């Protein structure tokens, strides 16, 4: 069938939307490679001069490896802690009989709706008491406030999607619930667990407020905080800021490229079930 007017309009609109989505990222990369002097003068959309001076400055003068390392460790640790604990809880919510299940889910949801800012002061005081300010555990604990509900929500959705009769067959075969979880449910839910882990990691990587509030010095800043604090007193060093944003984006971009199916599966696990 030949293209009808509606299809053409759709295609054009779609192309424009895509361009709008991608252009800022393209521009970010291009601008980060422009020499400082040209940053605000260049009128062309294509790079006229390429330089790596900003990137070099990041590592020589600002030791950008440290925030990257911090982000990796904190996001990784949070994911490693949150996902297994959430998986146990999610299996229970998805499959086992217990009273007050919907109340529990509602409670978990309500807790995650609380604005982050409001728990900063008490958390600050608690962390200070426990001498955990400016440490890795001192960020992992607050990060659990949003990563646990997120992981529970996602994993419950994934477990619910599995066909029940596989678990029933295992039970008739003689497997206990825990054994069924290990032998049948988890292997089959592996893609869903992966999606959950990826999304949890992403949310931790991108988190700003807690990292800002609970770290005290450059040795523990995460990437978002480090970039934010590049601001000089008089001028924003845009070249370096852009280079830093590009570096902050690369791991995210790689993750998206490698796991886009898993990410979409995670985002939509609740949606399709309604």
């Amino acid at each position, binding site marked *: 069938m030949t293209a009808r007017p509606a299809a053409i309009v759709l295609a054009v609109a779609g192309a424009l939307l895509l361009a709008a989505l991608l252009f800022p990222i393209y521009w970010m990369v291009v601008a980060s490679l422009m020499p400082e002097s040209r940053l605000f003068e260049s009128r062309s959309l294509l790079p006229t001069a390429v330089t790596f001076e900003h990137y070099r400055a990041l590592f020589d003068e600002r030791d950008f490896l440290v925030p990257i390392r911090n982000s990796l460790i904190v996001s990784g640790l949070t994911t490693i802690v949150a996902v297994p604990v959430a998986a146990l809880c999610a299996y229970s919510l998805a499959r086992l009989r217990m009273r007050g299940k919907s109340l529990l889910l509602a409670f978990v949801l309500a807790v995650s709706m609380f604005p982050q800012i409001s728990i900063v002061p008490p958390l600050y005081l608690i962390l200070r008491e426990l001498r955990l300010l400016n440490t890795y555990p001192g960020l992992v604990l607050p990060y659990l406030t949003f990563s646990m509900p997120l992981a529970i929500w996602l994993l419950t959705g994934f477990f619910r999607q599995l*066909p029940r*009769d*596989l678990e*029933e*067959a*295992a*039970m*008739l*075969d*003689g*497997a*206990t619930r825990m*054994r069924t979880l290990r*032998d*049948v449910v988890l*292997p*089959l839910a592996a893609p869903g667990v992966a999606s959950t882990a990826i999304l949890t990691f992403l949310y931790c990587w991108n988190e700003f407020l807690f990292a800002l509030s609970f770290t005290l010095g450059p040795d523990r800043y995460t990437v978002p905080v480090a970039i934010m604090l590049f601001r000089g007193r008089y001028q924003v060093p845009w070249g370096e800021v852009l280079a830093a944003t590009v570096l902050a984006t690369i791991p995210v971009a790689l993750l998206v490229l490698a796991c886009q199916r898993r990410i979409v599966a995670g985002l939509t696990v609740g949606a399709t079930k309604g």
Partner: protein
Amino acid sequence: MAAITLTGLSKTYPNGHVAVRPLDLRIEDGEFLVMVGPSGCGKSTLLRLIAGLETPTGGRIVVGDVDVTAHPPQRRDLAMVFQSYALYPHMSVRENLAYGLKVRRTDAATIARQIGSVAEALDIEELLDRRPAQLSGGQRQRVALGRAIVRKANAFLLDEPLSNLDPSLRAQARAELRRLHRLLGTTVVYVTHDQEEAMTLSGRIAVMRDGALEQVAPPLEIYATPANTFVARFIGAPPMNLLPAAVAGIDAPAGAVAGIRPHDVRVGTEGARRATVDLVEPRGPDCVLHLHLDGSNTPLLAVVSSAAPPAIGAVVFVTLPPDRLHVFDQRDGSRLGAHT
């Protein structure tokens, strides 16, 4: 192998829906019992209650001489074949077969031996290292059977195991099941909604409606002496004709209902009543005639041979032989006996 005894077993869901009314049923050791009924009659729920996948609201389940009512499915030593076969997709056929034995800590040598003999009996030896996704529907069904057989459980529970097969494969699968049953002598509880399947497979049929047992008897007995109008019309195709006893011309309590199977209605050029042909359904070896009796417009189904069937609109004569009539009570449909 064991007998299964259900006493006063019932299941009511929290939302008030009564899935199974209190019923008693004894399935003998080695018997092949088929539970049949329309959707929603409770037959699958009953099967799941026996399996332990649902907990009853009342009553007892005894397998062999053990009261398993309080036992989870793991401890009832029953094997089940699901409608979807429920084969573990991430395990090979061999691992699927071995799972139940492995969980029971059977030693590797015994497992291998038992898998071998079952695979041979079901002709699935070449499939042992494949994954379920690589098998055809018929092959999957055999593996599901194999998984149940290899465990040497007390009894087998089968939940519509043939309904996902192509119709052309079903007859063959039915024959296979009967052969296996004769060979293994296992107690089998089989659920289906297909009344023809129930008739050909079973030792006894349990007809269910709305959570209650309507009749439990061997197939031919159910066919010949249905306990009420529901059973009479559910078993046997085309369904039994039901008409007011007066129209059927018999002497019966006021308002009784008479029944006659379409196969028993005599159609010809002479007979007791006139009837007009509304529709002719050729079925190959025979034809189903949709008639209505002149004078009372009572509809009637009759089965005649395909040689020279009457045309639509033709007038024929029908006879309802009195010894083929069943009489039912008008109020609850229960059988009042055959007219003699």
